[in-house]
């Protein structure tokens, strides 16, 4: 009598968290009335014995490596020869990422930092005791991997786009196939806050005053350009970083009449960030400034 040959092994999630449902199928043997199946540990301890009418059997088993064999029972109760022990591996189940969940996992690198913290979560897999998380660069190159015991992981990543996978890990190094998440990881650069400059008129002097609140991480650069009336070119009067405690500037600070551009911008580690503030204004002379030195004309002419 022929020995049964195991044809297929199916694994399915069991209701029992620690076990998986195993389905095995073997080749029908002519003259067989029933089949006898035994499952044993690699150490030789038989842990399950079944008698099946058909060439298909379902049973539950814990994650691990086992061996199984089968033999034929005839109608008259005779048992055929046992098959060879066939190895049976029951790995943890693959993490079930939903194909519909494609929303990127997005975050931004905070201002002044190199990396952002990204929190990944995935469906819990009951048969897994731990998870191996792999993060890939866009070209598929592995960026890094980490093993965790819960179905979430906080990662510190520089700005960029990534993908990730999770592999369920069981005891004794048993692991599922690698499950790829359909959610890309997107780490952007946090936009720097715009420099907000407000204008007011000083009640005492009537001068326009610019006021701002400096960001603690950023320096403020002030550039002042001047164009005399009838001149074609603008010339830079000032281009300096302001003291960190300076929060205002008055237009009436001894400026000559003409056209002015005030450009205020923020810098982080010497690089301009965010939108700058620009104001153009025209400063007219007053009666007093127009007559400046006109009383000393004779002296200026050497008389």
């Amino acid at each position, binding site marked *: 009598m022929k020995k049964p040959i195991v044809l297929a092994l199916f694994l399915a999630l069991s209701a029992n968290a620690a076990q998986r449902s195993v389905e095995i199928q073997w080749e029908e043997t002519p003259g067989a009335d029933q089949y006898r199946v035994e499952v044993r540990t690699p150490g030789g301890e038989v842990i399950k014995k079944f008698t099946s009418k058909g060439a298909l059997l379902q049973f539950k088993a814990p994650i691990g490596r086992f061996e199984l064999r089968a033999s034929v029972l005839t109608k008259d109760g005779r048992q055929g020869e046992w098959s060879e022990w066939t190895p049976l591996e029951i790995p943890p189940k693959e993490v079930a990422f939903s194909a519909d969940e494609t929303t990127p996992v997005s975050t931004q690198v905070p201002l002044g930092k190199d990396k952002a913290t990204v929190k990944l979560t995935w469906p819990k897999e009951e048969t897994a005791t731990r998870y191996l998380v792999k993060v890939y660069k866009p070209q598929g190159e592995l960026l890094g991997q980490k093993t965790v015991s819960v179905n979430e992981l906080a990662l510190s990543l520089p700005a960029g786009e990534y993908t990730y996978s999770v592999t369920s890990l069981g005891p004794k190094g048993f692991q599922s196939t690698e499950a790829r998440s359909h959610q890309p990881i997107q780490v952007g650069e946090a936009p720097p806050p715009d420099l907000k400059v407000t204008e007011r008129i000083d009640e005492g002097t009537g001068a326009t005053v610019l006021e701002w609140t400096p960001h603690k991480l950023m320096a403020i650069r002030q550039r002042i350009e001047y164009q005399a*009336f009838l*001149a074609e070119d603008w010339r830079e009067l000032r281009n300096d970083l302001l003291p960190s405690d300076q929060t205002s500037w008055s237009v009436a600070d001894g400026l*000559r009449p003409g056209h002015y551009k005030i450009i205020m911008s923020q810098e982080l580690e010497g690089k301009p960030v965010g939108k700058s503030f620009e104001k153009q204004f025209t400063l*007219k*002379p007053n*009666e007093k400034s*127009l007559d400046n030195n006109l009383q000393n004309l004779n002296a200026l002419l*050497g008389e």
Partner: protein
Amino acid sequence: MNLRSHLVALALAPWIVWAAPETDKRVEKPKAPEGFQFCNSGKEFRQAVVFFQKEPDLSLPDEKITPLALEIAKGCDGAALRFAKTFLFLKNSGVDVPKAIHLSMVFSKLSDDSVSAFVEIYKRLLLENHLNLDFSTAYKVSLELSRDYKGDPKKIRDDFMDLVKFCLSEKDMALDYKTCAQLTLSLTQHTELYPKGVAPEFKKLYLFLRNHKSTGLAINESIKISEKVLAYGPLAPDNFIETLKLALSKKLNISGRDEILGLALKVSELSLQPAPEKL
């Protein structure tokens, strides 16, 4: 005139020798031939050089100062002062230094009154306590009424200042900057027609139209009619007023307000007519 004819003209000039004071031999000048003037060019050149050396915004190398000072000295007496005054004024206004030098050169060759007209008109157009116009407009108009003005610069200056003051003054017209600027520029087009400027005639006509018990026109209408009448010369205001009074006295067969004003305007238009051709 070329150099030779210039020298000939000088040689033929009736030379008058003056009893000059000991301190300055140039106090009184001899009479120059017609079309010429004698100039204290040495003084003008020296003053110009000193000014260039003393004025910090004119820090130029000596080789550049000399030709500029020579050019200024061509403006004859007072040229250095006119240059310096115009330059300082323009510089204090915020005008580009090279442009200020150029324009000051131009004014150094004009009269003191032209400089004064430019300065005073510019101030009134530009400054916030006067007409408060933008720089470009103030600059352009003040040049038109000084450098480019064909009439008497002193008259246009005084007329302009008088009109601005009357227009802005709280006790007179008390109008806004924009209206006053438009009105002043419109009226000063006629300044040369009036021996004492257009301002006195405008004031007279405007106040008549505003205050007359029978007319009592609104401000806008009074301005509009005054501008129309004043365009016809110095006799037009009196001709207008005379006709208006006549019509209001009911000696004419018209009674409607618009009709009366229309008639007075028509008569005032006849104040300026082409002269008859000489036979």
